[in-house]
């Protein structure tokens, strides 16, 4: 069970006899705003500006060109598949890591975060070596769409697992045991008691996985073959636009991808609020 959240609302400042807004209230927010602006917002603004530079018609021409549309469809499709795979298998993995005991669990738990540390090109390299031509396990997935999904699963593996683990840990098993002692089956216990508590974590993790998958290039570029219209993902298309000197077109597609990710993150934040509403006052 999560520790008792703010079940009583915050005590109004005036009732506490303190001024409404102290410098220490504003300073942190100011710092956050400045930092975020300098580091994140400015580059994105520059991108948006660049995408508009040659006019709206040019923007739409690049974004709606058949190659861009094909790449976008492939990227989004693969990202959704990867998010779903991660939602299911990531939850299972988190479950096993929290509730199960086996030798080497500590090490396995530690390497979950490895995709963050490994340069993505190395990830791509090894995936090609393992699952491409010359594979030691006899699987040649390389240069297919399956390879794209596989590479994306590698880089997004930690997101759902790490989002679900802390929730599982905090989860009080008393309710599950009570339900079971009342005769509920495993599946019902999971569906009715455990799953609703995990859902916000799964959603957050899946949303992050999706957002990351949409932008990934390093792990995918070596194993997908990058055939335009067939196995070319949006980030590779953006790169080829940059390389042919069309920075505005590249920025246009990048902005579209950004909007998709941004909308997704906002939506998941909203769903999360809805789902956890019963926990807040």
């Amino acid at each position, binding site marked *: 069970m999560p520790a008792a959240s703010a079940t009583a609302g915050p005590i109004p400042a005036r009732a506490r006899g303190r001024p409404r807004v102290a410098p220490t209230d504003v300073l942190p927010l100011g710092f956050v705003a400045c*930092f975020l602006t300098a580091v994140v917002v400015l580059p*994105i603004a520059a991108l948006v500006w660049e995408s508009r530079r040659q006019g709206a018609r040019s923007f739409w021409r690049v974004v709606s060109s058949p190659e861009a549309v094909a790449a976008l469809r492939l990227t989004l499709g693969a990202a959704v598949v990867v998010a779903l795979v991660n939602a299911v298998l990531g939850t299972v993995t988190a479950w096993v890591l929290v509730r*199960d005991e086996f030798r080497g669990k500590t090490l396995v738990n530690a390497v979950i975060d*490895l995709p963050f540390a490994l340069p993505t090109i*190395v990830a791509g390299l090894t995936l090609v070596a393992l699952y491409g031509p010359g594979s030691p396990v006899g699987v040649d997935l390389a240069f297919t769409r399956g390879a794209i999904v596989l590479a994306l699963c590698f880089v997004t593996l930690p997101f759902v697992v790490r989002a679900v683990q802390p929730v599982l840990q905090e989860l009080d098993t008393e309710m599950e045991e009570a339900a079971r002692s009342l005769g509920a089956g495993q599946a019902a216990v999971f569906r009715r008691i455990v799953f609703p508590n995990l859902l916000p974590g799964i959603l957050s993790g899946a949303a992050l996985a999706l957002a990351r998958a949409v932008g990934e290039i390093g792990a995918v570029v070596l194993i997908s073959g990058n055939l335009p219209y067939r196995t070319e993902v949006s980030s590779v298309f953006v790169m080829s636009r940059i390389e042919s000197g069309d920075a505005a077109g590249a920025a246009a597609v990048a902005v579209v991808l*950004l909007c998709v990710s941004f909308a997704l993150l*906002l939506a998941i934040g909203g769903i999360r609020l809805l789902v956890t509403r019963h926990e807040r006052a």
Partner: protein
Amino acid sequence: MPRAGLRIVALGYLTLVLLAPLAMVVRRTFAHGLAPVWGSLSGPETVHAFEITMLVAAIAVPLNTVFGVVAGLAIVRRRFPGRGLLNAFVDLPLALSPVVVGLALYLLYGRTGWFGGWLLGRGIHVLFAWPAIVLATVFVSVPFVAREVIPTLRELGDEQEQAARTLGASAWQTFRRITLPSIRWAVVYGVVLTTARCLGEYGAVAIVSGRIVGKTETATLRVDGAYQNLDATGAYSVALVLAAAAVAVLVAMTLARPNEQVA
């Protein structure tokens, strides 16, 4: 589902997607024995590359840690218009492809960029020098500390902090004595992830660093450089060191944590 079945599924998935590739990296690194690996790792370019990577991480990680904690607090504890937007912005760097990050930094700090001309006129080099590497690395690792701190803060609630305030503690004292200790492990974990991400960043840094051998070539760029020159052993050795460093920190953190919080 029976316990063993779940375990098999989880471990099978992990093996397929994570453990087998890791084993492959190890195998390929030592394919020709220990000596070539040592030769690659002790070459001056490689040593420089590790130095630069560590220095960049030494700047980027503290910056993002401070930001992550402050932003986490702001997002969870305060209500202000645009809170959801701020939250989404913090996560956005995860979604941006590094090629795009590089392009954006060119647009800002390039010779004909928004600030580039002005800065270069004053002799301030951002691109193709360490500031750009730091900027790119900070950008891609912004979310991690905040990501960890936010759910923990949510779980914990602010009762203790409110109690402290009514007892007369200042904001800073409340933060230092109550908030920070309670999110300590979330922060540490976030720092570990941020560090791992900083070590592994390649795409954006490749574009903005100028790849100057011995000066702005990070470890990941060295991996790429070795790979381009068909020096597989060199590439894999550096990659393995990066991965091993991340794993070592992760394992150390796991072991150091109190037992009830294994993750």
